[in-house]
């Protein structure tokens, strides 16, 4: 079929990466003053920021408070200028609600919610520029933000997307690769234990290939973990320097 070649004969993708190579990731913690925890991440051209408020008292309906653990409330929002075509509804549409729910499920698995009964933890994620891997960038940013807020977690939550083209598994899909319509897998991993917090797949994929794609996504998530770990250590080092010894 004529059109964009997602994987060339020499094994290069559209943006010049190899099959298992991640895009350049840059992340910073503690970017906003108002929030309890905040982080900003850039994965290639995808720019996402996450802000955490909490744990605090339940807002609104007290009846929704859980007697034995904290309620995690996630909201996913895309800026109207984040996509090629202007996005008419930045939040409140079905896709945003689904993403919010997925983020909530992911973080309920990782945050030690039993430590804060009857309270609420708010995680707000804003995508400023979307270039593929939105869910992954949001999860990575939210992990850093929760760590910045000092909320105890079981482990880092690292996410990455993967696809399958011409018999090869590709890690960290960009928008062009996602729009091509092949199978896509989004995976959120707790690296230390190797447990999957969330796994979602779109389009059709033969079960023989599933293991290969899962491996590619897991390896990419572990690479992300190494990077996020470095970012957190750097941030703590800087904070310790500022406080003085």
């Amino acid at each position, binding site marked *: 079929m004529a059109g964009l070649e997602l994987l060339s004969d020499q094994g290069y993708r559209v943006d010049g990466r190899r099959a298992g190579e991640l895009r350049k990731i840059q992340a910073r913690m503690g970017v*906003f*003053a*108002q*929030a309890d925890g905040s982080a900003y991440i850039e994965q290639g*051209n995808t*720019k996402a*920021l996450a*802000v955490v*408020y909490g744990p*605090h008292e339940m*807002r*609104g309906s007290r009846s929704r408070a859980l007697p034995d653990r904290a309620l995690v409330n996630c*909201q996913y*929002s895309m*800026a*109207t*200028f*984040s*996509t*090629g075509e*202007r996005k008419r509804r*930045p*939040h409140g549409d079905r896709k945003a609600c689904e993403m919010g729910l997925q983020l909530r499920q992911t973080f309920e698995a990782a945050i030690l919610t039993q430590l804060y009964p009857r309270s609420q933890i*708010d995680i*707000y994620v*804003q995508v*400023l*520029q*979307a*270039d593929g891997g939105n869910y992954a960038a949001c999860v990575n940013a939210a992990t850093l933000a929760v760590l910045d807020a000092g909320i105890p977690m079981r482990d880092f939550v690292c996410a990455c997307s993967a696809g399958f083209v011409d018999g090869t598994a590709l890690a960290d899909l960009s928008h062009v690769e996602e729009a091509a319509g092949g199978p896509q897998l989004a995976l959120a991993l707790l690296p230390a234990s190797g447990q999957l917090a969330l796994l979602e797949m779109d389009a059709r994929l033969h079960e023989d290939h599933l293991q290969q794609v899962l491996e590619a996504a897991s390896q990419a998530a572990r690479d992300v973990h190494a990077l996020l770990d470095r970012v957190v250590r750097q941030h703590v080092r800087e904070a310790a320097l500022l406080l003085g010894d």
Partner: protein
Amino acid sequence: MAAGFKTVEPLEYYRRFLKENCRPDGRELGEFRTTTINIGSITTADGSALVKLGNTTVICGVKAEFAAPPVDSLNKGYIVPNVDLPPLCSSRFRSGPPGEEAQVASQFIADVIENSQIIQKEDLCISHGKLAWVLYCDLICLDYDGNILDACTFALLAALKNVQLPAVTINEETGLAEVNFKKKSHLNIRTHPIATSFAIFDDTLLIVDPTGEEEHLATGTLTVVMDEEGKLCCLHKPGGSGLTGAKLQDCMSRAVTRHKEINKLMDEVIESVKPK
């Protein structure tokens, strides 16, 4: 000890500083917070700018689309501003439909655009009566620490200066528009409206660039929007304590100085991002 006093008697705490003609963060009464600006970082938008006024952070993204011109003025385009104060910028905002503050800010920006004639709407017309540009200017506050109006006007101005629109021609035979993405041109920005906000304390004292706490303790606010030649574009004083004419004059002269500072900053930044 000071932290305890601040929690129990915030106004008294502030008055102690104001008596010495300074503020808790070390600024003078007429001093602005550090202003930083970053333009063109969002490549999916046609123009973008991020402005930080101390901790207050606002990002503006401009997207251009086609539309039919309005029936009563067939040679004009549209500029549609929108200010969003999401719950992530401060715990005082809830999710849901835009609250009062966001709506007031959106209306303020719309008024500034209309009054200052920053862009001649006729420049946005592509084909008389058939096709025109509509510029959607979306401002999102990422961190709310007071003085949102100044940050929004500055972000809007910088983003509009960054916008590059492709050349559009109407094919005579088919009547369809042909967009030439290779030929891009900047917008014709006619004026540079810059806003300066003040907070009024105890009906007498005026401080420039209030932080979130200062806005909360103030008895009134005032925003002055100035143009290049010292022309006043907009004066926004939503109730609050009264002001004498003399104090108003002081505010306007402060706004004129601020305009020069911001203009210089913006020119430096635009010069630095120009492709060499």
